[in-house]
């Protein structure tokens, strides 16, 4: 079984990836916009926050700047798609690749340590909590605030217009919705959330690294799809809860798999396990129906 530290660590990372899953829910589910920018906007958020913290800025201010940087990255992807008519997936890959250079430029080196700096977590350590519980408490609050704000937004006039844009763009235009503007806003918001996740991750791990974004999209998708399997996302609030629950379950499952010695798995196997899990989650429902179809055909 998991040690206490491993358990809290998994929940902490799960909460951060819950924010990523919110972003991916916005792009993939609400807007039907497959967006890989997140692999670049996650380290972008980390880099911006880390550099500002090192420069002596307030860590919350640095985190806010990371959100804005993420939104900018998302807006670039969306504008490439909306204004220049580049396929959405390709537009996001272009931004993602460009961000690798941008992130190196921002940090000036491949990684930046934050070990002795004041972060958003610093004041919370004076509370009467165990050391490894502190990030869990703070990030739970951040995720809950994000969840409520997103939920309210999705229920607002603009949020509803955004949902219509993804679900039925022709109908949306006929109702006077500027679908292009909605895509820019939605993808920007999505990457703002991912930038926030990157900033918090850097502060809780004590470093920002240019490679920390590799596979964020897949982990986020794994969280989203896993959460949807557990909690049928029939309403917005359920879909948002599914993001967080899926992310935490995913991190716990990974922690368990890596801890189970008889499996012989090591931490470098993480990305392989993730890819296999996501593939299974996507394919399994289809396999079940096609097997069922074959069985009934044989009977007939």
């Amino acid at each position, binding site marked *: 079984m998991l040690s206490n530290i491993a358990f809290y660590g998994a929940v902490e990372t799960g909460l951060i990836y819950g924010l990523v899953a919110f972003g991916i829910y916005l792009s993939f589910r609400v807007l039907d916009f497959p967006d890989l920018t997140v692999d670049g906007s996650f380290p972008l958020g980390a880099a911006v926050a880390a550099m500002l913290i090192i420069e002596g800025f307030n860590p919350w201010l640095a985190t806010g700047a990371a959100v804005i940087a993420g939104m900018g990255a998302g807006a670039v992807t969306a504008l490439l798609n909306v204004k220049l008519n580049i396929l959405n997936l390709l537009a996001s890959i272009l931004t993602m690749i460009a961000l690798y250079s941008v992130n190196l430029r921002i940090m000036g080196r491949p990684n930046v340590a934050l070990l002795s700096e004041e972060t958003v977590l610093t004041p919370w350590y004076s509370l009467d909590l165990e050391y490894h519980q502190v990030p869990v408490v703070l990030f739970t609050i951040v995720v809950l605030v994000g969840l409520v704000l997103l939920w309210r937004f999705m*229920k607002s006039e603009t949020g509803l217009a955004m949902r219509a844009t993804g679900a039925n763009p022709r*109908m949306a235009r006929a109702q006077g919705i500027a679908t292009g503007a909605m895509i820019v806003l939605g993808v920007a918001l999505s990457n703002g959330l991912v930038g926030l996740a990157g900033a918090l991750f850097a502060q809780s791990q004590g470093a920002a690294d240019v490679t920390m974004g590799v596979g964020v999209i897949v982990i986020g998708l794994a969280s989203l799809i896993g959460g949807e399997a557990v909690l049928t996302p029939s309403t917005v609030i359920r879909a948002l809860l599914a993001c967080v629950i899926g992310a935490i379950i995913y991190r716990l499952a990974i922690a368990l798999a890596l801890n189970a010695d008889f499996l012989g798995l090591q931490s470098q196997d993480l990305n392989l396990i993730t890819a296999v899990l996501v593939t299974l989650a996507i394919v399994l429902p289809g396999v079940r129906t096609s097997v069922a179809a074959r069985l009934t055909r044989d009977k007939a």
Partner: protein
Amino acid sequence: MITATDLKLTFGKGTPLENPALRGMSLTVNQGEFVTVIGSNGAGKSTFLNALAGEVMVDSGKIIVDNQDVTKLPTYKRAGRVARVFQDPLAGTCEGLSIEENLALAIKRGQRRGLSSAVKARYMDQFRTSLASLNLGLEKRLGDKMGLLSGGQRQAVSLLMASLTPSAILLLDEHTAALDPKTASFVLDLTTQIIEEQKLTALMVTHSMKQALEVGDRTVMLHQGQVVFDIAGKDREGLEVKDLLELFEKQRGLEITDDSLLLG
């Protein structure tokens, strides 16, 4: 009022598939008029409607809606003046959203959308009364997903959505063509009822000559991207499908071979 002047539009210009869809189409629809539009496949009916709505941009010509030149405006900027019901019953609504959310989208057609709650308590009375007028019991199912409704029910709701806020013109694009005969006649009755009650200006494309003569107060026939005849008032009264055919042959020296037009 809506005025289209000398609209020209060619698809696939300079390619072997070059297709002149509109070749100088002109039409004025006056305030309160209900015009039915007929024509065989490829006559330019749908292209004309799409041009009015802004889904396609014309190569030349001018479109004026309520004294405003909208020729260059995209669909969403015309939506405040131009309401639409599509042929595909699934196209006019969002199946993943509830009935009340769909209506809430439509009640803000062409208006600014802010951050206040989309489904407001003060809309509810209007939503319930208009849904009750359909006699489908939908007023008790405001929270149900649109996807749970049948094609006919969804088309009826699309029609309500298009008439929830005032518009300069209501465009109906063969909106009963994809429905079974019984549902089609229900939706058509509903259409004439809404248009009469709210005194709407409407343009209805239909594939059926019979339908084109039965409803509305003016009939326009398109052929090869132009208006071939336009009849209203006394000339139109008592007219039958065979009279229309004669009229068409006289005008063009052509025979109609599109069976679906004759049989519809």
